[in-house]
């Protein structure tokens, strides 16, 4: 007797409309995300035209870029429960690869960017296979070590990466043509829309993934690896899958960064940035696509805001970080939704 003898219970009945709509809220399943993302996109679409100062547009572009990385990292850390203290490396790899391909090899961006994402994903795969066998502390350490090694390579491998000076004259993002990329104000605007369009699309895609068989497999791996494997989940396969996926998100963010700022150097990709990325995910709220936006926004705005305080910014950042981790380890989004839920419950009781 073999598995083929099992009755074919896999194929869903190809019947017509299923009986009635599913009561998703009653079953505890999440509501579709895309309407909310659409609402956010609508608000974002108007914002830059309300700003008198292009500085705010620039900040929002960076928030958007960080959101992309954060959404991917959230899949890894929040849903699948794996720690990465080296994700800056993947952002950097995306940025550098795309910069090198477009400057040295003169490849057009619509080739260079996907190629950069592919290369970074491949590196993530190769690196992920031995690394993801490790647990907890050890995984964090391995990713930390990897991140630092990549940074050192960026800094020292002069012939390829340009060393500490980096790569200059990186071609700008110009899907709408040179007219938009030559004019600084128009370039900012155009990049703003490209970045946030990508971020919104990725948020919806990620939310879809989370609420699917694959997403449940990620979360099952986080919940209990042993139990997940006894239900047929290939635990190591899925860990690697989510790791590579999060690296691909980071690589895209890196590419967008490189072709917005138009030059690449090692400094933005140090260990500090990896820490900031983790902070974005954790502070925003793990296991929540919105957490990534909130976290990216919070950290970016906080850094900008604290810069006003001159040298106090670093101290303040450290203090705020410790406070949030101690008192709100679930992150801001969860804290907000918990207090909202508590308030609603209290209202209902009256």
């Amino acid at each position, binding site marked *: 007797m073999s598995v083929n003898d099992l009755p074919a219970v896999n194929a869903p009945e190809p019947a017509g409309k299923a009986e009635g709509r599913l009561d998703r809220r009653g079953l505890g399943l999440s509501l579709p995300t895309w309407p909310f993302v659409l609402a956010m996109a609508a608000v974002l679409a108007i914002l830059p035209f309300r700003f008198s100062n292009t500085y705010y547009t620039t900040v929002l572009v960076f928030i958007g870029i960080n959101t992309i990385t954060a959404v991917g990292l959230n899949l890894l*850390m929040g849903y699948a429960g794996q*720690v990465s*203290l080296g994700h800056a490396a993947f952002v950097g790899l995306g940025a550098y690869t795309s910069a090198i391909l477009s400057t040295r090899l003169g490849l057009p961006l619509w080739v260079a960017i996907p190629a950069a994402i592919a290369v970074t994903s491949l590196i993530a795969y190769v690196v992920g296979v*031995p*690394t993801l066998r*490790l647990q*907890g*502390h*050890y995984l*964090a*350490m*391995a990713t*930390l*070590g*990897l991140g*630092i*090694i990549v940074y*050192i*390579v960026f800094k*020292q491998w002069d012939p390829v990466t340009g060393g500490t000076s980096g790569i200059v004259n990186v071609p700008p993002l110009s899907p709408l043509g040179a007219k938009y990329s030559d004019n600084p104000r128009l370039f900012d605007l155009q990049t703003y829309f490209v970045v946030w369009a990508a971020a919104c699309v990725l948020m919806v895609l990620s939310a879809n993934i989370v609420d699917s068989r694959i997403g449940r497999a990620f979360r099952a791996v986080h919940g209990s690896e042993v139990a997940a494997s006894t239900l047929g989940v290939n635990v190591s396969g899925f860990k690697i899958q989510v790791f590579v996926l999060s690296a691909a998100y980071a690589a895209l963010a890196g590419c967008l960064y490189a072709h917005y700022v138009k030059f690449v150097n090692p400094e933005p990709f140090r*260990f500090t940035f990896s*820490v900031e990325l*983790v*902070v974005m995910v*954790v502070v925003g709220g793990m296991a929540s696509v919105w957490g990534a936006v909130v976290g990216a926004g919070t950290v970016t705005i906080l850094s900008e805001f604290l810069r006003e305080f001159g*040298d*106090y*910014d*670093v*101290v*303040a*950042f*450290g*203090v705020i*970080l*410790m406070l949030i*981790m*101690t008192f709100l*380890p679930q992150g801001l989004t969860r804290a907000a939704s918990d207090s909202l839920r508590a308030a609603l419950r209290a209202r209902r009781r009256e």
Partner: protein
Amino acid sequence: MEFLSQLLQYLFAGITAGSIYAIIALGFTVIYNCTEVINFAQGEFVMLGAMVAAWAILGLHLPLPIAFLLAVAVAGLIAAGLGCVTIPPLKRASVVTLIIITIGASILFRGAAMLVWGQDALPVPQFSEGSILVANAVIMPQSLWILVVGLACVVLLRIFYDKTMVGRAMRATACCKEGAQTVGININRMVVISFALAGVLGATAGVIVAPISLASFDMGTMLGLKGFCAAIFGGLGNFGGGILAGLILGILESFGAGYISSQYKDAIAFVLLLAVLFLRPQGVLARRKSG
């Protein structure tokens, strides 16, 4: 002869750096043994020790021994403070949360140091002048000081753990928490003491390395990370392993920089870290955990 003297030069440089890594690794191990927390702020204790000593000597014109004691006391107190802060989240927090808390602390300390002492590097004078020649290799007396102090640290730590009440209590805590509590050991107090001890160790490393590397607000990061690599290499929680690993790391770095390439010198520690994690996560030098 030329080759030999160069070899010896690298060797001594390596042992010097390695001793520093070893002391830092000890600091990690002390905290880990008691709390299972990886203290990413360990490097900042080194920096605090160096900065306070530098300020005491250069600014307050205090003699070296006083400056040393001051540095160690300040770092120990601040470390104890960090220990107090980590106690509440310790019980229920996940690995990630604890890691981030100590990272947050390290950011805080670095920022505070930058505020207090500015961004310039402070030149701390060597403990004694002159230089020593061994087979045509020049050794700075500071290197010998580092070795001597390092050795003293190891010996004192051994005495602490074996002979003092507090030390034995810490060993009990490290091995079996519930058992320790039933005999009346105050776990929270042990946590704070272990942090203070790590602070003292880190500051010691900072004071003795400052004359060589200059004291600056950002010297802690790399030193801490490399000491951390040594601690893993030697087996987290394994004192002897951490010391040996630190020395080996220092020597490997020195030879690597001298004979292969000085560009990627910093990467050596992390490549070693990865090799250990991938091949033998419990540490190459780890002995089997004895009850």
